[in-house]
């Protein structure tokens, strides 16, 4: 069962990117970071903030929204 932090992360990313694409990008990045959806915590998100926000923001054309997403992920 996905962790609370993952659900929050997915919710934030899904508000900027298509939800299926968001889940796909996050799954790829979590694998790269050797994390999984069941155990990921806020601390893990903070530790991999650059990777997660960079990967997700590649699918957002508006640069201001990219910054907004980064700050929202950081706030999780």
């Amino acid at each position, binding site marked *: 069962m996905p962790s609370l932090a993952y659900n929050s992360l997915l919710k934030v990313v899904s508000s900027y990117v298509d939800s299926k694409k968001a889940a796909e990008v996050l799954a790829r990045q979590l694998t790269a970071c050797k994390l999984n959806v069941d155990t990921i915590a806020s601390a893990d998100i903070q530790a991999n903030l650059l990777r997660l926000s960079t*990967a997700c923001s590649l*699918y957002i054309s508006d640069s201001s929204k990219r910054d907004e997403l980064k700050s929202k992920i950081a706030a999780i």
Partner: protein
Amino acid sequence: MQNESPSLDANRSSVSTKIFLIVAIFSLPIGVLAYLLAANYTPQIASAQLELAGNSLQKPLMHVLYGLTSSKNVLQGCDAGNCATELTTQGTIVSSNLDTAAALNTQLAADLNTTSDGFAKKNHKDLAFENLESEWKALSVADAKVSTPAERAQLAEGYDRLSNQVKQLVSYVGDSSSLILDPDLDSYYLVDVTLLAMPEAVSHIANTASIGQKIASGAGSAVDQAVLANESSLLEESLNRIAASNATTFDADAANHGVSPTLQPNLGAALQTYKSVVTSYLALLKEVAGNPSPTNAAALATQAASAQKASLAYWETGANELDALLNLRIGDFQTGRIQALGFSALAVVIATFIAFAIGRSITRPLQELVRNLAPGATLLGVSVERIAEASQSQTPSAEESAIICEELNAHAENMRKAVLELARHVEGSAAAARMSNVEAGQTRS
């Protein structure tokens, strides 16, 4: 301006809309064919209903004919004054059935062309119900005053005249109701009996009874003997014709809108009775011709009355069975019409469901392709932007570059899968496998 042209508008329609349009276009001929098929039943049902109407009007008319011929026989078999009761009885039959026929005609006249105008147009003014009723009234008044042989002969002529008119009316109704053109073999031969053979048979019975009485009473001449022989032959021939027509009706029944359960039992029994009574009557006529005597005269009057009654009973059974056959035909056509419409509607519904399922199988991979490719444009744009920013700042982030490469790779893989899936749908599995092998070869090289 070009974008507003119909062809481009059609090109802009979604795949689902185009599939729906294809189904609609193919359903259109099914709908038209179903309509034509159903419409084909309607005149056949209307024609059978018209026949039913005609047959219903024949029933009281045949009773009138029976009453008139019986009255004539009564009149000729009695001495002055001793047949008033019997004449009154027959007169009541004629009056009540003429009234019934006239009342029925007010409902059916427009369909059967039996209005006064309708008769006039066909040069049959004399057959109009008003005319028949007034003639009958004149005869009724006359039969109360009959006393002398001359008056009786005059009244008998009047009965004959009216009988002929009623027979013509029966024939006219048979034509205008299309009974004469009945399209099925079983009912056609039954119409032959009820419409043509039986009215003639009733006349032959009346004529033989009339001449037979004359011969039996010793007043017959050689001409009367010849006429009696001739009328007897015609009655015998009519009996054979009726039996043959009945046999054809029975044989053809099953092949025309199914078996009528009452036809053979009812009509077969009625024919047997009629045949036996008329055969006895014919035998008696031969005896009367060979040996005229007052005893034979009395027996002849009784037998003639029995033959008239049997002919009417047989005719009634035939007319009722004709009704049953016509109702069976109407029911069969109505079922056929409902089935034609129902099966056509079912075919359209099934075709629509299949087209919907096929449409879904086409649009689903396309939607998947759109879902996979749509973020690609943003990804490529943002990736290029990032790389450009990184090259300008001269501080390329290795991690950011790696992430961009990973996402581009992942997207390329998604595109490859989507294109293969699309190829599988467009050109089939074999073509997709070939494409996959070519790609694998290119990757290896």
